[in-house]
């Protein structure tokens, strides 16, 4: 049987100190984001403009893709088209194999996670080195990322120290972040200098210029792309923006929203290969077009992958990135894939509090899309947690004030009379680590009347 989000979260949730630490680290990012947003006078106007601009892009995508690819080609960038993840992987492998390349340095790309590119290439004898520090840590550990911007946020520095001691020969017991980062820098510098191919993602693809922008703080994308004579960049087709003004707008919002910096350290704009070298660009659909044909699902592709919604999500902060089925966790992951999770439980890993939608820099209707997935799953009777059985009953009771009053009276009575172990069994997940509160003596309605409350018509 497929495992629900609640079951998946259990091992993370059991360590309360760690949950609190994880939650605080993410809230700190949210706080820094707020300070940056407040420091820009026109922030809300920028959000609205960015949203409209991305809606413009999505509603004119084929024409913009035509323009973009034609200009890339006139800039000497070789464009490839992939309808599926498999086509994407095959294109990348072909480019590398045709040129006999064996060692690829990679900067972070959610698309390559989506397509499972690295295992595909490694099966074909091509060594792939993740060069973003967080991704490198996870690659050495054999862990998947738990966040799209800070992928190793679930790990403590002591765990990373231990890993580096084993794999990079750092001192036993050393866990100072500066020391560990330095060790990774030295080890990866060798990889940069010996790699014969580089891969980057794309943050924005500028249609009017045939250019693409790659943003990093570490400088790893640039260290990769400018050394070997082969650079492969990969992008989901929604990364298009019409012009440089649009790219500037998103660059102004991306790092502010993601980690509360005014900019990433490096915003590198590629609009031609260096003389004597090649840039290949793979443009991928892989289900995007199908999702965009459903109006209530389509706006998720405004997303610029800043991760702000993940940082602010109360469920993500306290359940951890590995509790989700989809490789992108948190609100944006649920909004993309909530209709398609194994146990159909993902759309309920959300309190519908709305914090995500309120801070999204491009106004993706995140919780609204998650609620839409619930609606669809209910419509097809694919509800998790036994909801198919009891929700129709709950609905029947709640529809009638008399039945509701009777049910509440029975509940109060039952809670008073039942022994604790029975209540715990009836309480489901709620009573796993806490007791039910003592039941009130009377209903709220009775209390309200007794204290002189008057409702309409009485």
């Amino acid at each position, binding site marked *: 049987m497929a495992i629900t989000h609640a079951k998946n979260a259990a091992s993370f949730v059991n360590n309360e100190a760690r949950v609190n630490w994880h939650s605080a680290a993410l809230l700190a990012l949210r706080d820094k984001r707020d300070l940056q947003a407040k420091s820009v006078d026109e922030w809300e106007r920028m959000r609205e403009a960015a949203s409209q601009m991305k809606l413009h892009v999505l509603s004119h995508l084929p024409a913009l893709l035509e323009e973009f690819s034609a200009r890339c080609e006139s800039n000497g960038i070789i464009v*490839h088209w*992939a309808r599926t993840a498999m086509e994407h992987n095959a294109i990348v492998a072909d480019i590398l194999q045709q040129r006999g390349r064996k060692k690829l340095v990679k900067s972070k790309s959610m698309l390559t996670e989506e397509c499972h590119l690295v295992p595909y290439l490694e099966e074909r004898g091509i060594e792939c080195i993740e060069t973003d520090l967080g991704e490198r840590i996870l690659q050495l550990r054999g862990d998947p990322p738990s966040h799209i911007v800070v992928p190793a946020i679930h*790990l403590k520095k002591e765990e990373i120290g231990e890993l580096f001691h084993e794999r990079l020969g750092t001192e036993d017991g050393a866990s100072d972040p500066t020391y560990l980062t330095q060790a990774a820098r030295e080890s990866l510098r060798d990889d940069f200098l010996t790699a014969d191919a580089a891969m980057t993602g794309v943050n924005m693809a*500028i249609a009017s210029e045939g250019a693409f922008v790659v943003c990093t703080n570490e400088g790893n994308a*640039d260290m990769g792309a*400018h050394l070997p004579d082969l650079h492969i960049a990969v992008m989901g087709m929604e990364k298009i923006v019409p012009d440089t003004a649009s790219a500037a707008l998103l660059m102004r919002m991306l790092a502010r929203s993601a980690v509360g910096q*005014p900019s990433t350290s*490096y915003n590198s704009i590629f609009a031609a290969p260096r003389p004597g070298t090649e840039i290949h660009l793979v443009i991928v659909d892989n289900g995007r077009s199908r999702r*965009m044909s459903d109006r209530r699902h389509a706006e998720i592709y405004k997303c610029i992958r800043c991760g702000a919604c993940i940082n602010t999500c109360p469920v993500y902060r306290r359940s951890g990135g590995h509790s989700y089925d989809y490789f992108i966790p948190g609100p944006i992951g649920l909004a993309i894939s909530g209709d398609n999770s194994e146990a159909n439980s993902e759309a309920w890993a959300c309190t519908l509090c709305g914090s995500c939608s309120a801070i999204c820099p491009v106004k993706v209707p995140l919780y609204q899309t998650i609620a839409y997935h619930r609606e669809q799953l209910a419509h097809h009777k694919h509800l998790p947690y036994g909801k198919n059985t009891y929700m129709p009953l709950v609905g029947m009771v709640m529809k009638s004030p008399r039945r509701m009053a009777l049910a509440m009276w029975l509940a109060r009575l039952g809670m008073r009379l039942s022994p604790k172990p029975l209540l715990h069994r009836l309480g489901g997940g709620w009573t796993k680590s806490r007791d039910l509160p003592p039941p009130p003596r009377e209903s709220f309605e009775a209390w309200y009347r007794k204290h002189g409350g008057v409702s309409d018509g009485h």
Partner: protein
Amino acid sequence: MATRAEFFAGLSPCAIEPVAMPSLDFSALDAPVLQVFRQMLAAVGGIAGAGSTLPEVDQFARSLLDGGSHVLSLVDGVTGSIDTSTVHSPRQLAHVDYTIAPARLGVAENGSVWIDGRDLPQRSAVFICEHLLVTCHAASVVGTLSDAMRQLGSVAGNWGAFISGPSKTADIEQSLVIGAHGARSCTVFLLAD
């Protein structure tokens, strides 16, 4: 593998009704740009160079050379130890301690500078060095990134980067560490002329 025609034929129509492009004219910065630039440069971990003339930058470069450093100077009038006409491969620059590069623009709101590929013998020059020194004319500092992009105009056929402070990471427990893969420091000399 799909051809371009197959790719386009495979696209379902997008359900979003056509939306017009919004205006992307945003206001200018509401403060003196140089003052904001200096503040933001410090905030992103950059260093304000001591000196506002080329002879002063040159003097600084010479002091680095006296200390035995490998210096790649790409700024006319500033001394270096590497003849750029001999640089044919990006890996040749792996031992560079200091790169001194000209910026064509500065951006106040994020303390970044625009490095244009046409000013470099290799694009790697500003990433592979241990330390990056940049000269930027004070008069070419603009308020926002939107202003900067407007000023740059077309980037087609070119490469360039906005660099905002040194290379950094916070991937280990959110602790900020300067010097991840790129330069460990980024010093900007604002030139007065």
